[in-house]
């Protein structure tokens, strides 16, 4: 990582300042961020102001937030989403690290064949198997229980994306490290837990954030497997607000703002890790 940053610094020093590109870049940036700003501003407008087509709030009306929280238990939904996203993230990192370690550092019969089988799961679109997965969790009686988040977690406890990226991370560890560990009397498991895994921390961070965000943003699967209101996730909560009154834009924008905050926070905090880790995996190929 340190290597990358020094490289970037020198590269930008070499590059000449390009104010024209800067202006164009800012125009694009404003266009991209404008829907989010618009949402935030509208959430502080009264119903009347929205009808008068105002955009900038004058009184910072917070009634919309009150209404949004009255119409849908958004904090329960946020808690559900946090539990589900964190569980999936942790479980994928565990299963992905284990498999990534085996594929990246060990040698065994059928290694390449099994790795190809893992990669093949990427070729099967999630929405093409959603009916059968629904029937599976339904046959286990999970959908009749009043409160359970298991149906949301179970199918997302591992992913080819995670395994692949962790394999890249373990592959890039120097072989001498494993040799030294073996000479020091480490067995494979001790080497994995004590030596190798801590060194893959940047990749764990990047893959973890990516997993968190993608599970947090799921819509169709939670829609299918959550029958009671108590176990819904935030994304469905937004749909609930829209269904309650599709014209109450102030309320909907307030609810949307509440829902966006956690994932934006995760993103802002983890952005550097995410970028360096993801792109490292991509470049190494």
């Amino acid at each position, binding site marked *: 990582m340190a290597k990358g940053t020094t490289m970037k610094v020198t*590269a930008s020093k070499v590059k*000449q*300042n*390009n104010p024209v*590109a*800067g202006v*164009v*870049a800012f125009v694009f*940036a404003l266009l*991209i*961020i404008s*829907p*989010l700003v*618009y*949402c935030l501003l509208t959430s502080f407008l009264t119903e009347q102001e929205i009808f008068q087509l105002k955009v900038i709030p004058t009184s910072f009306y917070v009634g919309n937030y009150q209404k949004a929280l009255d119409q849908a238990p958004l904090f329960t939904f946020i808690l559900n989403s946090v539990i589900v996203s964190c569980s999936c993230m942790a479980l994928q990192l*565990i299963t*992905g690290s*284990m*498999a990534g*370690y*085996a594929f990246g550092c*060990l*040698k*065994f019969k059928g290694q390449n064949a099994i790795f190809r089988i*893992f990669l093949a*799961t990427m070729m*099967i*679109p*999630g*929405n*093409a*198997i*959603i*009916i*059968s997965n*629904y*029937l*599976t969790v339904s046959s286990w009686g999970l959908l009749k229980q009043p409160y359970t988040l298991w149906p949301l977690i179970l199918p997302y406890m*591992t992913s080819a994306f995670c395994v692949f990226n962790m394999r890249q991370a373990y*592959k890039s560890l120097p*072989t001498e490290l494993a040799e030294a560990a*073996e000479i020091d009397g480490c067995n*494979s498991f001790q080497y994995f837990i004590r030596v190798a895994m801590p060194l893959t921390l940047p990749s764990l961070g990047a893959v973890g954030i990516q997993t968190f965000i993608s599970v*947090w*943003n799921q*819509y*169709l699967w939670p829609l299918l497997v959550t029958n009671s209101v108590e176990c819904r996730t935030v*994304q469905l909560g*937004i749909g609930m607000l*829209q269904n309650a009154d599709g014209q109450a*834009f102030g309320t*909907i924008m307030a609810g*949307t703002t509440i829902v*966006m905050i956690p*994932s*934006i926070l995760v*993103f*802002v905090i983890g952005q550097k890790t995410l970028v360096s880790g993801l*792109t490292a995996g*991509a470049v190494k190929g």
Partner: protein
Amino acid sequence: MTTNLPQQTVKKKGLTFHDITPYFYILPSLLLFILFVFYPFVKTIILSLSVTDNSGNILNWANPLFSNFATALTDSSMWFAIGVTFKYAIMVVVGSIVMGTVTAILANEAFRGRAFVRAVYAMPMAISSACIAVIATFIFNPTMGILNQILGTNFRWLRDMKLALPSIAMVTVWMNIGMNYLFVIAALQSVDISLYEAGSIEGVNFFQKHWYITLPSISPTLFFLLVINVINSFQAYAQIRLMTDGGPGRYTTTLVFSIYTETFEYMRYASGATLSVILFVILFILTAIQFKAEKKVTY
């Protein structure tokens, strides 16, 4: 295993620890893949060849075996949905890759405030499709939304049979900018600087430089993004559900959207599974074509 060939073991990366079998490490993932990917995949194929009741139980094999497919393939609404899906996918894929590349090239230049611009370009990644779909529904609202106000138009964006699909595609492009931007800007870091130096000696301008040097150099990344964007665009659901619910008419009903309505609104599981298999076949063929084409095109 390879004790008599220590040299080779070192050369090939990865050592053999002799105590615990490596299969232990891959077992959890393998079992989960079997249970939630391969088994449902086979089950979906079986469902598509069966007659089901309205809670998804298989009653018997379809007679003739491929009758569900015969019904689907002679159904004009299925072909219409495929047409909608392709139109949508083309708009989304082209838009996403172009936007991702343009933003990445811009953010790679040197100027003041670049850190802010870079953060904003990646930001859409953190916003869920449900959130941006709901915001866009407001922006597109004919009377209260800001888009008609700014443009001075009077379009009913999401209720117009010509505008509805491009509107959703535009929102999806917005959603995809973050990921595409990140991959392209990563690829830009590895472009050989000497190419640019040679270019500046030749006196190329900004556009020539990127058209003739940058794009060919990052073509493997662009290819990767093409594959990913095609697969993603074929699977869109939340934004369609929240913005138009498949309407007006069936003008925004994609294949995945009809899988959902067939299965979970009309309770026709076999028919939904048939459409799922068709979705898989289409994506498989498209991906195969792309990989074939890549061998010819990539530098």
